[in-house]
């Protein structure tokens, strides 16, 4: 039982790393493009 708990925790951590990688690939592009569109405030 403890082993499966460890595996689950490690899987969740891996899952979070995957989301971090996805954000780095696609999420940051959106933020940067939104910043460009808004432009400086007058």
């Amino acid at each position, binding site marked *: 039982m403890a*082993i499966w708990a*460890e*595996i689950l925790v*490690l*899987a*969740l951590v*891996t*899952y*979070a*790393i*995957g*989301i*971090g*990688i*996805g*954000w780095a*690939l*696609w*999420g940051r592009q*959106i933020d940067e493009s939104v910043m460009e569109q808004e432009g400086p405030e007058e």
Partner: protein
Amino acid sequence: MSELLQANWPIFLVALLIGIAVAWFVFVATRRTRVETTKGDTLDEGADRAARNQALIDAPPAARKEAVPVPPAVPEGLAGVGAAVAAAVEDEQLEHAEAGHSVQEETADDLTRIKGVGPKLVELLKSLDVTQFEQIAAWSDADIDRIDARLGRFEGRIRRDNWVEQARLLADDDMAAYEGKFGKL
């Protein structure tokens, strides 16, 4: 722990791929393109009044009407009668001059038919009121000297090219004699 990872690496790989897939789904697949027009046409009804008025002021001016010519003031009373009469006389004189000018143009001869006379000399002679063969044919020596002095760089041409004789023959329309003496036209 390392043993655990090595033994169950497919599970962790799948977890990683699921995490990347979820991130893709969140950041890419569900992205909606929003088109927001923050800058509307200033002349829209909803626009600020001051901005709308400024836009109308800045607009190019409408085509101006041509200025209506103001007629000259009509002289009132007897004081203006003299001026009116003088103006009428002036107009009449102008009409006569124009009529005379047009008559002269109608009866003017082609002076370029005289050998030695080109378009420039014709203009010069026109300015001296010489437009017909009869006029040239009737020149005396004194007239020739007088006109010659006005010809500038063409001075001496009258006698050299015998304009008087040529003009006389052309005025009489004696082509045979003309061509016999001066060659073909």
